[in-house]
């Protein structure tokens, strides 16, 4: 795979989640380059995981580094990543969700790898809203009048 000079994105999650998130992101913002999945299998050992992750990072690293978006903090994938942060040019953020992934996709061309850490964490949280609260707020603003 010819790698363009841009920060790579890895979505590492259990089951179908990685593929699912990436497919959905493609529906929303179109195809994104230098992006791949690492699928975490049930009960997968740390050695095999380390190998998979390392290979994925190396396949995407064009010199700008790679951001790894994990589903969960703690557990084997998270621990394996922690050991790799000193070895590879990666930023690892857990709790991947669609808002996080979308924002990373559109911002990676204009930020460096370390800055993407904050982008990921902020966007992931920003996307979590209560629609009910918003409706209630609008209704109470209408009641109060101009």
């Amino acid at each position: 795979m010819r790698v363009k000079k841009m920060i790579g994105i890895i979505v590492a999650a259990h089951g179908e989640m990685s593929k699912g998130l990436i497919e959905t992101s493609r529906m929303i913002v179109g195809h994104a380059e230098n992006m791949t999945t690492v699928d975490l299998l049930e009960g997968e050992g740390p050695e095999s995981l380390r190998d998979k992750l390392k290979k994925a990072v190396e396949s995407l690293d064009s010199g700008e580094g790679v951001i790894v978006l994990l589903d969960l903090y703690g557990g084997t994938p998270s621990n394996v990543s922690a050991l790799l942060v000193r070895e590879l040019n990666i930023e690892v953020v857990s709790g991947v969700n669609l808002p996080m992934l979308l924002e990373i996709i559109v911002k990676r061309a204009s930020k460096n790898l370390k800055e993407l850490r904050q982008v990921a964490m902020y966007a992931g949280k920003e996307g979590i809203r209560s629609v009910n609260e918003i409706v209630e707020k609008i209704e109470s603003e209408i009641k109060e009048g101009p």
Partner: protein
Amino acid sequence: MKHLSEIKQTVRLLNKVGLHARPAAMFVQAANGFKSEIKVEKKGKEVDAKSILGILSLAAEYNDEVTIKANGEDAEDAIRKLVDLVNSKFGEE
């Protein structure tokens, strides 16, 4: 100081999907290339042009008018680039 250097321009979205999907991603990516603070406004609702979540929440459709506002040292360049992008229908049609 802030308002003195704000530049804005209103454009109409004439591409099929408006500010959604790939055009939205192109718009946000382009906005992120500038230092200025950039906002997009539609019917009184203003969002950060550098955030895909913000732009998508605007729900700007085909034929909608939006106002692009930029504030900062490269505000003129930003407005020009983003207006061109919209007027060229994001190079898609």
